């Protein structure tokens, strides 16, 4: 488990003092995929670098598995870093070494003998599906393949924690999906904790269990990905969502001049598959028109969110929210 306590990072220049991080506290559980999202300059890059102390906080503590990282000496810190894998946006592979030797590199640093290095390299290269490319040089591979090498290298020393610094930001959409699937597989099969930073809500939606939204060096919102997606509280979260096509406010235009009660219905899990709306509409004798909606998947959980206008007899309309809630649908009345 990772505990971040009141992390601050300030840069003092003669002109002014700037806060890259202004008091960040977070808890990340063992085995989860935790996403940190924010715009460029929000501080996410500084934050992830504090988990292996590539950047030292000006103030605050980092505790990982009961070990206070911020209190370690140089030599202990280097040993600790060998137990944390890191994957980079631009891969940061050694262009002068083959794929195999890139993967062996951290093992060599850890003092493993050559035969064991090669065995382990073969294992992780098989895991990321690059066994056939072991003798190639990084520049002979595509971006996605290079990132797989980066992931293999990060996994070589059997870390408990994997840090992904914008790991898919330099890749095309299709390759991004395959790298994200690989990360989810690794998380499941190896029980590895993954912390990733990204500026894309799609990345968060495809892989993360929990998410924190960072803005101006502070965590403005955090929680289960489903909750944050269905009920974003902070304006930054809302605008990040609307940029990835999940606009929570689009119904307003449609609802202009519409009669009846407006409801936002959120449902998650298997209930999404039941013909609930048509049932209640029949049973209560109300008419529903859909003003906005999205149905999809967040990681493995199907979810949906609809904004509907309800028309019908006043009594029936009033009963509708309760009936929907009984069926596991969250219901929220909206006002124009």
């Amino acid at each position, binding site marked *: 488990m990772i505990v971040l306590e009141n992390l601050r990072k300030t840069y003092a220049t003669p002109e002014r003092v700037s806060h890259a991080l202004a008091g960040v506290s977070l808890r990340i559980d063992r085995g989860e995929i935790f996403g940190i999202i924010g715009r460029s300059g929000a501080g996410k890059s500084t934050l992830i670098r504090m988990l*292996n102390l*590539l950047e030292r906080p000006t103030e605050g503590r980092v505790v990982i598995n009961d070990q206070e990282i911020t209190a370690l000496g140089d030599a202990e810190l*280097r*040993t*600790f*870093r*060998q137990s*944390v894998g*890191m994957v*980079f946006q*631009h*891969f*940061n*592979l*050694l*262009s*002068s*070494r083959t794929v195999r030797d890139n993967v062996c*590199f*951290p093992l*060599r*640093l*850890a003092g493993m003998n050559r035969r064991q290095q090669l065995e382990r390299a073969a294992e992780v290269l098989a895991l990321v599906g690059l066994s056939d490319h072991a003798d190639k*040089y990084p*520049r002979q591979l595509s971006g996605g393949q290079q990132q797989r090498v980066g992931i293999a*290298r990060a996994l070589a*020393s059997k870390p408990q924690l994997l*840090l992904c610094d914008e790991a898919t930001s330099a890749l095309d959409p299709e390759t991004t999906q395959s790298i994200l699937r690989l990360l989810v597989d690794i998380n499941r099969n190896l029980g590895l904790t993954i912390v990733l930073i990204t500026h894309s809500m799609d990345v968060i939606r495809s892989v993360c269990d929990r998410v924190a939204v960072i803005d101006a060096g502070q965590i403005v919102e955090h929680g289960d990905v489903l909750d944050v997606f269905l009920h974003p509280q902070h304006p930054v979260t809302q605008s990040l969502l609307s940029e990835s096509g999940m606009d929570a406010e689009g119904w307003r235009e449609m609802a202009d001049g519409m009669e009846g009660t407006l409801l936002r219905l959120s449902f998650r899990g298997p209930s999404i598959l039941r013909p609930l709306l048509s049932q209640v509409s029949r049973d209560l004798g109300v008419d529903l028109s859909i003003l906005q909606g999205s149905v999809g998947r967040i990681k493995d959980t199907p979810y949906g969110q609809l904004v509907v206008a309800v028309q019908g007899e006043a009594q029936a309309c009033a009963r509708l929210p309760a009936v929907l809630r009984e069926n596991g649908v969250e219901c929220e009345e909206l006002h124009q």
Partner: protein
Amino acid sequence: MNFGNIDWLLIGEATVDTLLMTGFSLLFTVVIGLPLGIVLFLTSPRQMLENTPVYQVLSFIVNVLRSVPFLILLIVMIPFTRMVAGTSLGVEGAIPPLVASAAPFFARLVENVLRELDPGVSEACRAMGANSRQTVLLALLPEAMTGIVAAVIVTAIALVGYSAMSGVIGGGGLGDLALRFGYQRYQTDVMIVTVVILVIMVQLLQVFGDRLVARLNRK
């Protein structure tokens, strides 16, 4: 002009002398300049072993040696050259000033090659728990190899030119020959032959160097 009068034996000896001067100077230049360049890089601002006093002192010495004209350096260094090489004449006498002039030049080239490397490589090394020695020896130097080889070739060519100048203090070699026969005795034919040989030497170095760099780059 009569090329029939040229003493080819003398030319042959002078060519060997120039090769010896350039070769040994290059060897010592790399031995001294490579570590110097690495230290310059590592102690410079925002690098692994950032150390402003060390960087500024080294940088100052390098700049001084680079700004003294080689001909002056050659003369100023005579007492020191006697101490190190036992003589200030001939091939041995030319090597210390050649190294003193080329090593700082080469060190700067190495510093720049290292600075041009993607900083992501150093960051990845740190993240994997490498110390600075491991980062330099196992990652940065192999990554910089192409650039360093190119720097060696540039330095070697500069040394061929400088070694010709050492003829002024009796340094031997092709430059000496050109000066004594070509200039002082008006034997233009000797002058032309030495210049042609120097041009061929530089050409060969460049072609060989380019091939080596291309081969390293193919990886």
